C-alpha cells in the first residue's frame, strides 16, 4: 500500500518536473515556428540596420544594440554598487540593523516596473534633459540608469546571502591570525562567495535584458543606432521596448509580426544561454564549505 503511494508520489514529482521543462521547450518551438516566415523570406537581412515595415525592411541590429547598451550601463552601475552594499549589510553593519536595511532594500524589488517608468518620465528624463542640455531626456543612458536601480535589489539580496551563508569559523580563524576586517573580506570571504556573486550578477543581467515597461517609457523609441555610436545620450530602442510598443500594431501572421517574434526568439535565446552559464558556473566551483 505504502509502496504504491510512494510510486504515485514519485510519478507526480517526475511529471511536474517534465511539464515545467516542456513549457520552456514549447515556448522555444512556438517562437521558432512563428518567426519562421521572417527567417525564410527576409533571411540575413534581419541582421541589418534599417527597420521600416512599409518598405519590408526588418533589421534588428539597432534594437539589439540598444538592449546591450542599456543593459551594459545598468550592470556597470549596479554591480559595484550592489556588491559593496551587500558587503556592508552582511559584514560591517551590526546584525540587528541588517534585517531592517535588507527589508527596505528588498522593497525596491517589489515596486512595479511601471512605477519606475513613471518616475523615469516625470523626473529622471527631465533632469538629464536639463543637465546635458538635450532635446529630449529620453535616451539610452536614462534607460540604463533607471534599469540599474531596478536590478540593484537582485544583486544586493543574493550577494548579501552569499556572504552571510559563509560559516563564522572562516572569519574567526582569519581574525585569530591577525587579519584586519578589510583583509578578511577581500582575501577570505570574497573568494568563497565568488560563485554565488557571479550567479547573482547573471540573474540581474537576465532581468535587465527582459525589462520592458520602464525602459519603453524612457528609452526614446527611435529605431536607429546613435551617431556617433557611443553617444548614449541619444534616443534608441531596445528589443523589449520595440516589442511592447509595436506588437499590437502588426497583423497576425504577417512578415512584420513574424520579424517581431524573431526578436523575441533572439532575446529568449540570450537569456537561456545566460541561465545555463549561471548554472554551470555554480556547479563547477562546488561548495567550498560544508
Amino acid at each position, binding site marked *: 500500500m505504502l509502496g504504491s503511494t510512494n510510486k504515485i508520489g514519485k510519478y507526480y514529482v517526475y511529471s511536474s518536473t517534465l511539464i515545467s521543462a516542456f513549457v520552456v521547450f514549447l515556448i522555444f518551438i512556438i517562437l521558432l515556428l512563428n518567426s519562421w516566415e521572417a527567417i525564410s523570406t527576409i533571411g540575413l537581412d534581419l541582421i541589418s540596420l534599417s527597420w521600416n515595415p512599409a518598405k519590408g525592411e526588418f533589421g534588428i541590429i539597432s534594437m539589439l544594440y540598444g538592449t546591450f547598451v542599456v543593459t551594459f550601463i545598468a550592470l556597470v552601475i549596479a554591480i559595484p554598487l550592489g556588491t559593496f552594499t551587500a558587503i556592508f549589510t552582511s559584514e560591517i553593519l551590526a*546584525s*540587528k540593523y541588517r534585517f531592517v536595511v535588507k527589508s527596505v532594500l528588498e522593497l525596491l524589488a517589489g515596486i512595479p516596473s511601471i512605477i519606475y517608468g513613471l518616475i523615469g518620465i516625470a523626473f529622471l528624463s527631465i533632469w538629464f534633459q536639463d543637465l546635458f542640455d538635450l532635446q529630449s531626456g529620453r535616451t539610452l543612458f536614462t534607460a540604463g540608469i533607471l534599469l540599474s536601480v531596478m536590478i540593484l535589489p537582485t544583486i544586493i539580496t543574493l550577494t548579501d546571502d552569499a556572504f552571510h551563508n559563509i560559516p563564522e*569559523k572562516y572569519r574567526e580563524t582569519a*581574525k585569530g*591570525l*591577525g587579519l584586519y576586517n578589510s583583509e578578511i573580506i577581500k582575501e577570505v570571504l570574497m*573568494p568563497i562567495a565568488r560563485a554565488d556573486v557571479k550567479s547573482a550578477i547573471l540573474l540581474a543581467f537576465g532581468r535587465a535584458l527582459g525589462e520592458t515597461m520602464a525602459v519603453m517609457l524612457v528609452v526614446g523609441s527611435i529605431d536607429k543606432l546613435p551617431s556617433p555610436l557611443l553617444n548614449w545620450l541619444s534616443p534608441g530602442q531596445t528589443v523589449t521596448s520595440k516589442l511592447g510598443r509595436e506588437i499590437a500594431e502588426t497583423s497576425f501572421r504577417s512578415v512584420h509580426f513574424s520579424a517581431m517574434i524573431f526578436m523575441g526568439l533572439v532575446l529568449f535565446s540570450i537569456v537561456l544561454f545566460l541561465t545555463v552559464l549561471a548554472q554551470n558556473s555554480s556547479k563547477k566551483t562546488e561548495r*567550498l564549505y560544508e
Partner: protein
Amino acid sequence: MEQHILKSKLSVVGKTTEDIIKLEGLHIWIKENHILDAIDVNIPKNKITCIIGPSGSGKSTLIRSINRINDDVDGITTQGNINFNGSSILTSDTDIASLRTQIGMVFQKPCVFPKSIKENVLFGIRHLKKLSKIEKLQIVEENLKTVSLWKEVSHRLNDKAISLSIGQQQRLCIARTLAVKPEVILLDEPTSSLDPLSTRAIEDMMVKLKEEYTIVFVTHNIQQAKRIADHLIFICDGKLIEQGNASALFSCPQNSQTKAYLKDQYCAC
C-alpha cells in the same frame, strides 16, 4: 599543617615563573547571561596552562576573551582587566589585529581555507611582511616540521588543504598559527574532534612547543590535562573554583568541588 606546606610550595612556584597574562576581575555578560563572574587568573610564561571545567562553564568564553575574538559576539559586555606583558589589552585603542598576531588561536574544529596546503601555512604571516620565494618555502618547511606534518605532505604542498584528514588539518592549523610567531597560543579544545593518535601527536607537540611559546589549552578531558598541564585552572558555572600548579592540584585539590570534578568529572555547582 599539610595545607600550609602546600601553600608555601605554590607560592615558590608562583615566584619563579613570570606571568605573561593576568586576568583581573573579569566579568562577561552575553545579553542577560552572566557567563564569567569575577575571574582572577594568571598564565605563566613558557608553560602549558589547562583550563578545565564542565561543558557550559565558560571555558571557551574565557579563552576567547584573551585575544578579544569575543568582541564581535552580539550583545557582549566585558568588565575587568586583562594584562598582557604588563599592559592592558581591553583599552579602546588596542590594535586588536596586531594583538592577535602575538596571541594566536587554534579552534575546536580545524578550519582550513579553500587554498593549497602551502598557502594555508603562509596565510597569516603573508599579511605581516613581504616574503621572498625562498623565505616562503623555509617558513612552510619549518612550521610543517614542527607539527610533524612535513613528511606526510612535502610532496604535495600545492594540493588543496581540504584533501587532508581532519587530524592533519588540525596540525596544519597549528602550523599556520606558529608561522605568525606569536608569544602565546590559545587552543580551544583542539583535539575534541580528532582520533586518539592525532590527539597524542598534538599533546606531544605542545610539550615541545612550550619551550618557545606560552600555551593555553582548553579541554574537557581530565586525563589530557593530567598529561600535559603545568598550570591548571578549574572553572565552573562562570566562576573560578581553583587554580595552581597542576601536579599539586591533581594530587591534592583544596576545594571540594575540584576534588569531585577531578574524580568523577562531575560538578555540583
